[in-house]
């Protein structure tokens, strides 16, 4: 028997909301970044669940591109945090208020 798609969608929704919670409540920049990766993975799971449900390969291709873009985003974001650490000696996002209005 195959597992109903709803199970995967619910798991994906729960993981996404855990990621949202991490972004909203944490102040460590690296942890916020890891929460974003968690949200991206939840979306990937939704794409794959619907790809199997609809019998289409396009969902898998989208997951492929999302992985590539997540890698680029992680590289740039971590470089930004390294630069921030060199300037401010912290990666607490509360301290990074240079562009604060």
């Amino acid at each position, binding site marked *: 028997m195959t597992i109903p798609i709803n199970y995967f969608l619910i798991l994906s929704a729960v993981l996404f909301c855990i990621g949202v919670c991490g972004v909203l409540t944490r102040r460590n920049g690296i942890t916020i970044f890891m929460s974003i990766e968690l949200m991206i993975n939840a979306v990937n799971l939704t794409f794959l669940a619907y*790809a199997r449900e609809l019998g289409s390969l396009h969902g898998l291709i989208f997951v492929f591109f999302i992985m590539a873009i997540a890698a680029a985003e992680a590289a740039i974001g971590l470089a930004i945090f390294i630069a921030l650490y060199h300037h401010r000696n912290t990666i607490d996002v509360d301290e990074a208020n240079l562009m604060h209005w």
Partner: protein
Amino acid sequence: MFDLIVFFFFAAIAVIFALMVILHRNPVVGALALVASFFALAVMYVLLDAPFMAALQVIVYAGAIMVLFVFVIMLLNLQHQKEERTRPIQQFLGFVSSAAFAIALVYYIIKFSVVRAASGPFVSDARAIGHSLFESYILPFEMVSILLLAAIVGALILSQRGQSKGAEQP
């Protein structure tokens, strides 16, 4: 039946380690918990008949990206840094709003159950993905390669310690 047992076991692992990522104070423990969560998600991909994507998940996410995270945490010597509790009201509001969001999402997923479309045989091996990627998706593929090149250059420029100014003006 066996599939269901595997699903619930690894779903529990994924959710528990994801919670550990956002609740643990130490970023190194968070990164390792995220690796465990990604491995559980790779098992989900296998259950969804996408073993190629599961391999990519393990290689790219659990391998490359998480090594990058752990490397930066070690480089900046953050493993001893603990964030102290400030702004309790905002934190409480964040927890409550994300929990409400989760409950609403799950409620509507259950309420409006997805109609099962009549689908053909689902072939998702590397050969099928390669054909699709290099025939109908060749332009996005090339654009992603350019994006990755731009990301490499950007990361190099961002992470150097401002030596370029001195080098340009001797």
